[in-house]
């Protein structure tokens, strides 16, 4: 086995393959980043909806709650299949990358909505009371009072979710998105040995994910330390 690896390695790590892998790694990160950036916006909206109290908005509140419950309980692969077939049947010709991005967004929005909600809930009741008594509406309360206090609670787990999802996007390879895992399958099909190919893919994921997760931990500690309490 070792002879084969040593024999293959120079060819495998050739310029073309490295560029191919680099682009694939970029797609992997972009997929998760895009989904999470749109997801935090939509998720915040969902969390906000769940905070409303007016009666006419009750159906929306209900939908928002249902959404967060449902999409946190469906595997990424199944969501991916649903989105994939929905686009296929509606004859919208969307590149596979975007099909996967929509799927990531759907799931990320649900998880991030819960993270945002937990952040909102971490702000003391009396802050909400004071704002309400001074005639702040929900949006003003969140904008001026709650978010400035909650973002430090929200950011670390939201970033953590983003890093976590980088690995889940490996499943996008199943619908043909050219990301790291798919790149691995392509190179494996070209005849490179599985040990070399998937070993390299694992290392590539590690090189992407590890620094980001370290950054996340650093972020968490930094935001939690009292010296940085000020906005």
């Amino acid at each position, binding site marked *: 086995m070792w002879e084969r690896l040593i024999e293959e390695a120079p060819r495998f790590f050739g310029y073309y393959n490295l560029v191919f892998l680099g682009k694939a790694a970029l797609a992997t990160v972009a997929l998760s980043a895009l989904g999470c950036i749109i997801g935090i916006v939509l998720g915040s909206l969902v969390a906000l909806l769940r905070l409303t109290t007016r009666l006419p908005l009750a159906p929306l509140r209900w939908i928002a709650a249902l959404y967060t419950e449902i999409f946190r309980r469906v595997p990424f692969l199944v969501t991916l299949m649903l989105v994939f077939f929905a686009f296929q049947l509606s004859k919208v010709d969307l590149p596979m990358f975007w099909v996967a991005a929509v799927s990531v967004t759907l799931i990320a929005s649900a998880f991030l909505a819960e993270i945002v909600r937990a952040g909102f809930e971490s702000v003391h009741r009396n802050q909400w*009371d004071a704002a309400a008594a*001074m005639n702040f509406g929900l949006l003003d309360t969140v904008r*001026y009072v709650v978010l400035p206090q909650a973002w430090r609670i929200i950011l670390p787990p939201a970033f953590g979710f983003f890093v976590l999802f980088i690995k889940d996007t490996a499943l996008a390879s199943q619908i043909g998105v050219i990301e790291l895992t798919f790149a691995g399958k392509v190179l494996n099909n070209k005849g490179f040995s599985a040990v070399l190919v998937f070993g390299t893919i694992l290392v590539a994921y590690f090189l992407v994910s590890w620094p980001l997760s370290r950054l996340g931990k650093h972020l968490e500690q930094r935001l939690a330390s009292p010296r940085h309490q*000020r906005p």
Partner: protein
Amino acid sequence: MPRLVINGLEARYGSLKVLDGIDLDVASGDVVGLIGPSGSGKSTILRTLVGLTPPAAGSVEIDGEHIDYAKPGDVRRLRDRLAIVFQQYNLFQNMTVLQNVMIAPTKIKKRAAAEVREEAVRLLAKVGLADKLDRYPDELSGGQQQRVAIARALALRPEILLLDEVTAALDPELVSEVLDTIRVLAREGMTMLIVSHEMGFIREVSKEVVFMDAGRVVERGTPAKIFDAPEEARTRDFVSKILRH
């Protein structure tokens, strides 16, 4: 003519009935003192008045206008006229002292920032905090935070001011400062409902004193009557205990 009229007000936390038919009125320009043992529902009355705890029954009228707490529009108009100073101050932790006082007038009432700033600085000077404008709440003592909360409420230019235990955390010399502030406010025609355990303060500043216990008004009258010649045994008991302290 009474400005604030409360009739048969009831409120509950879950199954616990905290207010059990409160009747109360505050005439225009008057100061009414609300006293009673801990847990009797004093804070709850104020919270219910500003619409933070929904009333279970009863009616509230301001200048003859009935307030329907189920209607957001009614509550919004009500909160334009009422300001509350909370027992726990409830200052915004993410804002400096000055920002705390300025935020609602500028962002919610949309008044010009320069004018609001001038007024905020004046109000903060009035409560003795001219040198703390850029501090954050967690850098202040309890008494200082309490005074910021008073300034913040005044900056709203309310018609009726609800004060919950405002002197509880103050140094003796500051009590008189706050007292002066409140006296001036009363003279300017500010209608106030004041909750306090400081009987001396209540006695001095109130036109009328209301004693409540277990969610009901037990007795009401002039400070002289409540403190010197209470009719109800429960009042006598409470007053004698608290004055002996």
